[in-house]
């Protein structure tokens, strides 16, 4: 019996429970609904919850636990000489057994018998059914596969019985509880509240998941490559990940990637901060309502454009333009028409990223500037200061902490940005200061280490998680500090 069919049965029991529960409540009320504590629907829901919730919990636990139990039983049945081999070899054997088991399920009875008579035909017969095996199965594997099949068969039958019984028991129990004074609504609402709490704890779980998953993989990495070589290494040369190889032949220095990340982020901020800040000031202090209502949403469109589009823009438009421009310039000055700006360069990536960040800077600063109390503004204007003097001497100093917070948040976005740099910054990991040359970033390397074949045992793959946790920590620190500053700032004016 398939899981979805089982769930359907549980759902049917639940619906039936709802109807019976409501009906029972109505009957108890005997036409006087106000004699009930809750509306009949709540009694129905109470029965429905009791029929479905425990059954589903049982189902979930079973789904998780039963493969573990079956696997350990099958392994316990391995011949002694197999048990003596290494864990990895046993895993390999077990994987093969489950493949065989999958194959056996689709075979006709006579084909099965043939296989059991002559194990050497198994590989070809199973391959014909779309189940390729890596090698000819050892004799013990066929019997193990057979017992695995029998066990999972038994498990699913048993599961069906247990789940349906649980659902029925829940329904009967809750049905018997129904009485006019029984507080069905409070119980049902209690369950709802638990559901709401569970939903909000997903936020926590996500963070835990991020930290835990990256830490585990990063720790695996640091077991192969010493942490100080990673954090203080100046050479990034991971080599190729040879399948199955676990030696760390490559060099994994974070410094060149970090340098590229910060350099490109710096260039981006050089573009985004003045433009965004002035745009915000103009918008909040000068622009007429009309201009504001047009310009503000248009600028925000920049924030809605996917970063891959910016990346493409940098790759096919901005990069070649800067390259050709530099060729023309150098031609005019020296007569040698060779470009000094590469198409993929710190400048290209930083510039385009800066454009992307303009709306972040402007809308964050706009909020902060408008939060400066009117009284401050009026005070300065009333003394005969011009608007720009008021802005420069009164509003900006008052808003400064908030703006710094906003800029930190923007910077964290620049550090974590991926697609623009993947397409426009280049892949060469080196430390240099010429903005016209390509450099690479942490995010680019995460992508390039994780596209293609993955080998969760090789440092070439695992390093991506070390890079990831570094990135996570950097952006987290920037954000927490920024939030702290902005919150302090808000409190000042509340």
């Amino acid at each position, binding site marked *: 019996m398939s899981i979805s069919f089982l769930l359907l049965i549980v759902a049917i029991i639940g619906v039936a429970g709802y109807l019976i529960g409501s009906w029972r409540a109505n009957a108890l009320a005997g*036409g006087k*609904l*106000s004699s*009930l*504590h809750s*509306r*009949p629907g709540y009694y129905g829901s109470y029965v429905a919850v009791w029929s479905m919730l425990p059954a589903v919990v049982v189902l979930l636990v079973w789904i998780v636990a039963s493969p573990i139990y079956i696997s350990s039983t099958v392994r316990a049945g391995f011949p002694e000489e197999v048990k003596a081999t290494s864990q990895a070899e046993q895993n390999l054997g077990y994987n093969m057994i489950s493949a065989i088991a999958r194959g056996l399920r689709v075979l006709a009875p006579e084909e099965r018998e043939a296989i059991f008579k002559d194990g050497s035909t198994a590989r070809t017969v199973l391959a014909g059914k779309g189940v390729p095996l890596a090698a000819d199965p050892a004799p013990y594997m066929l019997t193990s596969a057979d017992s695995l099949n029998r066990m999972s068969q038994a498990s699913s039958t048993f599961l069906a019985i247990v789940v349906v019984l649980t659902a029925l028991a829940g329904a009967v129990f809750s049905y018997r509880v129904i009485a006019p004074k029984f*507080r069905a*609504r*409070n119980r049902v609402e209690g369950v709802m509240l638990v559901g709401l709490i569970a939903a909000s704890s997903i936020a926590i779980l996500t963070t835990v998941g991020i930290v835990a998953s990256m830490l585990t993989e990063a720790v695996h990495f640091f077991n192969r490559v010493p942490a100080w070589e990673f954090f203080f290494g100046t050479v990034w040369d991971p080599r190729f990940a040879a399948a199955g190889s676990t030696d760390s032949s490559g060099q994994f220095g974070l410094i060149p990637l970090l340098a590229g990340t910060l350099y490109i982020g710096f260039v981006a901020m050089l573009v985004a901060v003045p433009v965004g800040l002035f745009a915000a000031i103009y918008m909040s202090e000068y622009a007429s309502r009309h201009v504001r209502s047009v310009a503000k949403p248009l600028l925000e469109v920049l924030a809605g454009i996917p970063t891959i589009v910016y990346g493409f823009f940098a790759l096919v438009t901005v990069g070649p333009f800067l390259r050709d421009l530099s060729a023309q310039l150098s031609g005019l000055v020296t007569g040698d028409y060779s470009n000094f700006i590469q198409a993929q360069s710190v400048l290209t990536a930083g510039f385009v990223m800066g454009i992307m960040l303009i709306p972040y800077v402007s809308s964050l600063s706009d909020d902060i500037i408008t939060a400066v109390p009117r009284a401050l503004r009026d005070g300065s204007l009333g003394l005969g200061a011009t608007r720009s003097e008021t802005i420069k001497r009164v509003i900006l100093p008052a808003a400064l902490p908030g703006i710094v917070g906003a800029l930190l948040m923007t910077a964290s976005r620049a550090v974590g940005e991926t697609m623009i740099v993947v397409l426009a910054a280049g892949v060469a990991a080196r430390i240099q200061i010429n903005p016209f040359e390509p450099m690479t970033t942490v995010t680019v390397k995460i992508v390039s280490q994780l596209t293609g074949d993955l080998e969760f045992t090789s440092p070439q793959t695992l390093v991506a998680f070390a890079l990831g946790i570094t990135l996570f920590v950097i952006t987290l620190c920037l954000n927490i500090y920024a939030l702290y500053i902005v919150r302090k700032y808000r409190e000042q004016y509340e």
Partner: protein
Amino acid sequence: MNIMSEAAVEKALDKKMNDISYKMIGKDVSVYYGDKRALYDVNLNVRENTVTALIGPSGCGKSTFLRTLNRMNDTIEGCRVTGRITLDTDDIYDPNIDVVELRARVGMVFQKPNPFPKSIYENVAYGPRIHGLAKAKADMDGIVESSLQKAGLWNEVKDRLHEGGTGLSGGQQQRLCIARAVAVSPEVILMDEPCSALDPIATAKVEELIHELRANFTIVIVTHSMQQAARVSQRTAMFHLGNLVEENDTDKMFTNPDDQRTQDYIMGRFG
């Protein structure tokens, strides 16, 4: 459980001695907001089918006391109530009391009219619907009509029951809120300065309404206006700085109060 029966005994004794039936009895009621104490051991009984007015200067605790009567204070974080309040024989702060059921018995009308942004009909029908007071559509129609009639609004809105409740004038909105409260058939209706946001004509209508409602409901009203208290209530309680200063028949209160402070307040010496 002991407490409840004790309360019941007390109430029975009260009834016997005075031959007055008290709908709600407040004994040593104190309210704290966090560390701040807002009400000091108030003892105030609310008589059945009577309009009781709570008066006093701003911040004296009259609204706080009103909100303890149907536990609306529960919705304020950090608010704590001590003492005992009973509705008939039930201690309303007993953990076994269902607050929802309590509020269905003790309804409330707020200072500012707050109709739901739904039709007039839906506004009135909401309470009966969640409490399951009507089985068929016809029953509900009946409840809505009679509630609106009791609130004196029926003739004004009967042709536009399915238009938005927020489109009514302020006075009509407040009477709609009263109709909404009445529709649940509570035993007690609490009114927190129900006329403070209304003009004099609308106020007169609402006051008239309160007068009529007295026949079927027990009403407790907080008001800022001494005149209003004099016009609508039979009993008046005067609060000052979180203390109950005096509780008396309204007539006596406004002519010959027992307490000096009441006298001063009514004369307009502070407020």
